[in-house]
């Protein structure tokens, strides 16, 4: 007695039955939901541009973050190079470029920390100062928290790689983390545009 559902159908083992990768679909869903989350914060920021009742205002305290942005955008490139070497099996070069990616991300995070330090202690802008403060810290903070999560994931991969735990079946894991990192980068493009370009004159 065969299983009931198989009884009349000759199962053709050769029939190709391919389904999408679980991790890729999950990562796309995660990125979608995160995008929705960021959208609301971006909308809040745009809505409150120029509506602060008291200073400090964006044009007084914000400076376009050239170096930090360059570092973050550059890290998207270095992570792709690292991936390339992983696929070729050159683990030493993978580690190197992966480490450079982490270093660039850390530099970016350090910049955010410094920027916030100056804003809070020198310029006197806190989250409760005005609506600019509220929206600025929540939007940039949300992005920074994603950078932290990204760095955490990158570090786990680097440690695993040093301990020679990364083998062939983990390539997709690595690729997914790089997708996430690219997403964090893409969000920064939007944040940069909204915070450091559009609101500069208010």
């Amino acid at each position: 007695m065969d299983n009931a559902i198989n009884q009349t159908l000759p199962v053709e083992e050769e029939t190709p039955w391919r389904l999408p990768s679980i991790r890729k679909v999950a990562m796309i869903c995660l990125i979608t939901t995160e995008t929705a989350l960021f959208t609301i914060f971006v909308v809040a920021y745009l809505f409150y541009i120029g509506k602060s009742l008291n200073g400090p205002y964006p044009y007084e305290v914000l400076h376009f973050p050239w170096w930090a942005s360059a570092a973050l955008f550059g890290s998207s490139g270095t992570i792709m190079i690292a991936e390339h070497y992983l696929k070729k099996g050159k683990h030493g070069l993978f580690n190197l470029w992966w480490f450079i990616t982490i270093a660039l991300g850390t530099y970016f995070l350090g910049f955010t920390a410094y920027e916030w330090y100056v804003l809070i202690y020198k310029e006197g802008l806190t989250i409760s100062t005005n609506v600019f403060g509220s929206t600025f810290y929540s939007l940039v903070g949300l992005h920074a928290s994603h950078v932290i999560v990204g760095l955490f994931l990158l570090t786990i991969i680097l440690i695993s790689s040093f301990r020679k735990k990364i083998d062939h079946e983990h390539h997709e894991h690595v690729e997914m983390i790089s997708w996430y990192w690219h997403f964090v980068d893409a969000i920064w493009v939007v944040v940069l545009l909204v915070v450091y370009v559009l609101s500069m004159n208010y």
Partner: protein
Amino acid sequence: MAHDPHSHSDENSVELPTPTAWPLITAFGIFLLFFGLVTTVVISLLGLLCATIGGIGWFSDVFPHPKHEPFPIRPKDQWPQPISPEGRSVSHLHVGEHGHREQYPAAAHPYAAGFVGGILGALVMAAIACAWGVLVDKSIWYPINLLAAVGVPSLAAADVETLKVFSMVGLVVAVITHFTTAVLVGLLYTVILPMLPAKREWIWGGIIIPIIWTGLMWATLGLISPAMNAKIEWLPFLLSQLGFGLVCGLYVARSVRISTQRTWSVAARLGVEAQHPGEK
């Protein structure tokens, strides 16, 4: 799970994920973290610790490989009952049988023709209306604002002089309304025209439908847009409708009909998934 290289499935067992308490502990940690926010910060710290431990435990469950264990398959006498064929059969109704009509068009015009026809018709219609506006009402903006008045309350309340002045909102709303409607009608033409009982499709699309449409508008416009009803001139309205109908109808009617694929499967029609080799 059968594609998992670390699977140990065999005849007598199935791989199932190992039961674990780590997700529960992580969730409880997050609960304490939040609960601390409404009570005291010590509980939050405890929650953070708990969630971290849970997260590490969880990670150890899935890295380097998600944990599985073999689960024994039941003895065969506990398997589901085999499904036996039912004696009753089903009779199917086929198209054309017992005088049942075939109601859908077996062939229709391509949507692209409807789209382009709609745009072309819209341009002609706009040209006629605007020409009348310039020649008779001495303002090109008058017909545009009048159309927009259906959706823009401020224009609906405006007097004739205001309607003759350029309005950005009016222009945008009118353009969107005009072209959306025109394209929709054009798309509708591609499907409807082949179903109408005549050889010459363009007579239907070009003349009869615009006249019916104008009559319908004449009867109901007072309810839809009183402002427009009070100011509209029906002669140019009919002329522009006919202009649209003739251009769009002719364009659609001249395009080559294609099969509607009504007999194909949905998957095949969408082109998304191939069928199994064993299937017809």
